[in-house]
């Protein structure tokens, strides 16, 4: 687990370590400056009490305090800003990685993971990790600085070492408590995230089926099913809070136990005059000072445990190997007309028991038009998907232009094959961009020429000229289509959308 965690976050932290170091430097410096504030005030009150003050020295102290206050504000603000900015930059970089990764995943992956689920990586998980590193850096820096300065000051004081050692004894329990509670908190927060996801899915399902619900007057049923999911979140949240708030209150409690030891042991030592009263007072003050950072550390650990589940999810997603990749020795297809040759093709979908295609063999000559017919589920779509390497066919079964499609770069294979899906999927951009989709870089002149050509002929003939055509009555579909992601953009009807996709396939000269 530690290795996968190292993946995303650690590499980011490492590559940005100079900036983080600078930010932490600002924070520490602001802490040091801030520590001068009470000291200066103390000196001022002492001087004032002694009566050795003139208006000039009073003014001097006022200005000194002003300078300290403003410097602290600026330094702390700078540190805070830098850390927050880095956190947002982490989000940015991670989203870039996720998107790049999404474009490499196959239809098989998308069919198994709903879009809502994938979006929640980008919306929730990334944010949760960012919040924990930003707050973590700020609070840990403060807490560590305070604890360290307490330790340093204690060791420079006249308090005997063995007394300090006895007093901090309860704090040694912290690692054990973290190890004991950490996994429980993580496990329960994972449950919360899961129940949240399942509520989201349920909402999607019920709103998607609103027509059916309404026509069967089944509103109560839908309400009941959704209500169960909502209640599950509440119950899981409360279970989580039971541990996490106990954990959070436990750390300051340990600090209080340290003070109890200080009172009893230190008090006895003071009473028997083995240490001075001053040392005793100092000891109790330092131990109280440790309380706030202890609280902060509890906070940070709690937060880390929760976001760790998110980080693991992201790392697992990024570690997911795309199943369809170009082979290392793959080459692009040559120019000119291409034929298709299929030999002994048998294909089984991942996880299926029955093959979808059994021992298929045929040839298509360059420029030939071939129609594929058959009833639903007979394998027409599968055949087209294999040709485009949406799924990988067994090696040696499909050849395009005389070459096994596994040896053709994915890029050139897909560039040379144009297809018109059954349900036109339009992106919410201009009609022009939708038509020029296959080559977004092409000039507008080319586009308008294409458009007029398209207008002058029936849609089905737009790309007939000298290209090998495979038309399956159920051509390639979006992964969505079989019951999922079919976005209806704009007001265009089915028919109109399909002709737009026909045109979209034209510019790539298949």
């Amino acid at each position, binding site marked *: 687990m530690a290795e996968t965690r190292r993946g995303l976050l650690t590499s980011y932290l490492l590559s940005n370590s100079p900036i983080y170091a600078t930010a932490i430097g600002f924070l520490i410096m602001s802490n040091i400056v801030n520590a001068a504030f009470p000291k200066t005030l103390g000196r001022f009150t002492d001087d004032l009490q002694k009566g050795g003050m003139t208006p000039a020295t009073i003014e001097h102290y006022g200005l000194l305090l002003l300078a300290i206050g403003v410097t602290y504000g600026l330094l702390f603000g700078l540190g805070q800003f830098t850390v927050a900015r880095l956190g947002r930059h982490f989000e940015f970089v991670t989203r870039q990685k996720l998107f790049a990764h999404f474009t490499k995943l196959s239809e098989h992956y998308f069919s198994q993971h709903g879009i809502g689920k994938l*979006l929640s990586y*980008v919306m929730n998980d990334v944010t949760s990790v960012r919040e924990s590193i930003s707050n973590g850096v700020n609070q840990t820096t403060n807490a560590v600085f305070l604890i360290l300065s307490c330790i340093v000051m204690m060791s420079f004081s006249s308090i005997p070492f063995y007394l300090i050692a006895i007093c901090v004894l309860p704090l040694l329990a912290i690692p054990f408590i973290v190890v004991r509670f950490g996994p429980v908190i993580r496990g329960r927060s994972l449950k919360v995230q899961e129940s949240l996801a399942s509520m989201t899915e349920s909402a999607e399902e019920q709103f998607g089926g609103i027509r059916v619900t309404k026509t069967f007057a089944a509103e109560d049923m839908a309400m009941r099913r959704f209500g169960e999911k909502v209640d599950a979140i509440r119950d899981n949240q409360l279970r989580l809070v039971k541990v996490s708030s106990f954990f959070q209150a436990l750390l300051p409690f340990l600090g209080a136990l340290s003070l109890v030891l200080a009172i009893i042991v230190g008090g006895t030592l003071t009473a028997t005059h083995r240490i001075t009263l001053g040392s005793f007072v100092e000891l109790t003050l330092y131990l109280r000072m440790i309380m706030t950072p202890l609280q902060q550390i509890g906070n940070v650990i709690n937060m880390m445990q929760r976001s760790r589940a998110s980080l693991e999810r992201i790392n697992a997603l990024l570690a997911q190997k795309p199943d369809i990749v170009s082979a290392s020795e793959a080459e692009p297809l040559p120019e000119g007309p291409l034929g298709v040759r299929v030999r002994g093709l048998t294909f089984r979908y991942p996880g299926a028991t029955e093959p979808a295609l059994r021992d298929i063999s045929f040839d298509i000559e360059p420029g030939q038009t071939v129609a594929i017919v058959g009833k*639903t589920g007979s394998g027409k779509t599968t055949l087209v998907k294999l040709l485009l390497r949406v799924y990988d066919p067994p090696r040696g079964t499909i050849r395009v232009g005389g070459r096994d499609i596994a040896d053709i770069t994915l890029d050139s294979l897909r560039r040379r094959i144009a297809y018109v899906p059954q349900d036109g999927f339009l992106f919410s951009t201009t009609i022009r961009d939708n038509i020029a989709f296959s080559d977004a870089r092409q000039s507008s002149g080319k586009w308008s020429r294409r458009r007029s050509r398209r207008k002058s002929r029936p849609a089905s003939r737009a790309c007939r000229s000298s290209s090998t055509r495979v038309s399956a009555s159920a051509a390639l579909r979006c992964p969505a289509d079989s019951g999922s992601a079919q976005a209806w953009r704009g007001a265009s009807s089915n028919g109109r959308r399909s002709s737009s996709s026909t045109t979209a396939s034209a510019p790539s000269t298949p």
Partner: protein
Amino acid sequence: MRNPFRFGQGKRAKEQPEISGSYQTTPAERKAAFRHIVAYAKPHLGTFLLVFGCSLVAILADLLQPYLVKIAIDDHLMGGKADAKLLWMIGATYAGLALLSLLFTYWQNNLLQRIGQSIVAKLRKDLFRHIQSLSMSFFDRFPIGSLVTHESSDTESISQFFTQVLLSLIRDGMTLIFILIFMFKLDVKLALISATLLPVIAIIAVVFRSWLRQTYQAARTQLSRMIAFLAENLAGMSLIQAFNQEEEQFKQFEARNQRYWKANVKEIRSNVLFNRSFDILGNVSVALLTWIGGMAVFHRELEFGVLYAFINYIRQFFQPINAITQQWNTMQSATVSMDRLWRIFSTKPEVVDPEPEQAVDPKLEDVRGAIAYRGVEFGYLEGTRVINRLDLSIRPGEMIGIVGVTGAGKSSLMSLLCRFYDVTAGAIEIDGIDVRRIPQAKLHRMIGLVQQEPYLYSGSIIDNVRMFDERYTRGQVIEACRFVGADPLIRRLKDGYDTLLSERGSGLSAGERQLLSFARIVLLEPRILILDEATANLDSFTEQLVQHALQVVSAGRTTLVIAHRLSTVMHADRIIVMKHGDIVEQGTHAELIEQGGYYKELYEHAKGGHGLEELQTG
């Protein structure tokens, strides 16, 4: 159907997707939204008081701890009369107080979460119930994705408002008031001078308010644009891959991602400046107080002890203020969420149940199933007309086929009968009763609708057929499935009737899923049956199976069949031919062919044009 970012199913102009965009609201609306949400906290007033009590005990236990140390020092160690027993007692009391603080902090957190979670759960359920009660026109306007966001994130940020913001406002507000009281008790003049800080704080808050709101909204807008782009790209990923556009889309994503990042940095900048300016103001005022107060002490106008206390109070004064400003962002997102939810809650269903004195509640078994459209006019958007003054009467038990090209108004006719929408003029009657006078739940029990894409829920087959209504027994469900011929198919599945359908029934073929929706009809026995392109997605072999089921199901019911494929409706008692929202012809298949009009044209086109029996339109 899995895509949450898909638009509603109506064939009409849709608004731009609003996945998490920002809305402009008037102050009055904001007030109403706030009041609506705060009402959710009311039932928890008692628990809130308990939380208050808990934190009071916890704080007191915390504050008493240093006092105990003081006792140990002043009364015992200083006097030199400390004995071990007393020290042990003080130590034990201290440990007791720490334990008390631990317990009450723990209870406080748990109670607070209980309130927050109860509010969210109630809010989510209420929102769901409300959305469900809205008309189809609402679902045409709001993409499902944004509704899901309302259910999941907006409710969440409102719960944070109750658990974090409210707590901070109460706790820190109280502290602030206490400190002010103490200051006035100590020295009125100095307190008045310090009180001039309040308007300064107010000015800073006002100056920053609009800036903060602006940067926050800007970041939110960029976020929603990026998410909308991403959602769409995920939905169309196979198309992107097939057209080899990964790099191009990545670049476009990067541009949006970058804009969001930049907006974020601006937002951070405004937030840090806001928080730090209070911090600096606090320190500046201490410095000023030191100077002014120091001079006063110097001129013997002020006691030193008072100045010392004042300096401490001023420093403490800024702690709660800082704590409150830390909550600013949470508060802002909660307000935005409140506005967004209010927009939904304040939307009234367009289609409403009749007033009790108007309502007619016919017994289901007495419904005969006569339908009459009288001068019906309808358009989805104002100014456009999909149906023009249409008259049609259907006898009980008649089977009507409705044909016409895409956009002729066939589906709209059905939607009006189900009251997904209300007619703009005219009336639709069932057995002579205006559908608007029948309670919707009853109306929907009278009518069964089977659509092109059967919608299955995640759950077992049994539950899907009986729509999770356990009043129908297992035996009844099996009987219904046997009736439509689905039984052998289901028995072949691994767990038979208990097979869990995942991903909207993706394990079943289109025909099998459609058979299940026919079984639903048989079980629930509506008097009127509507088939909206119910067989369009099936190949001819599966269609035969479904056709058989259809015959069984439609027997004795008034049945309306919409179809592209003329073969589906050829045997109907009457065929209605629609064009541009009008009925242009009607009669039996033979009569219409003989008439040689539009129907014949469609028929010839379907038969001859493609050599197929399928009529391709659009």
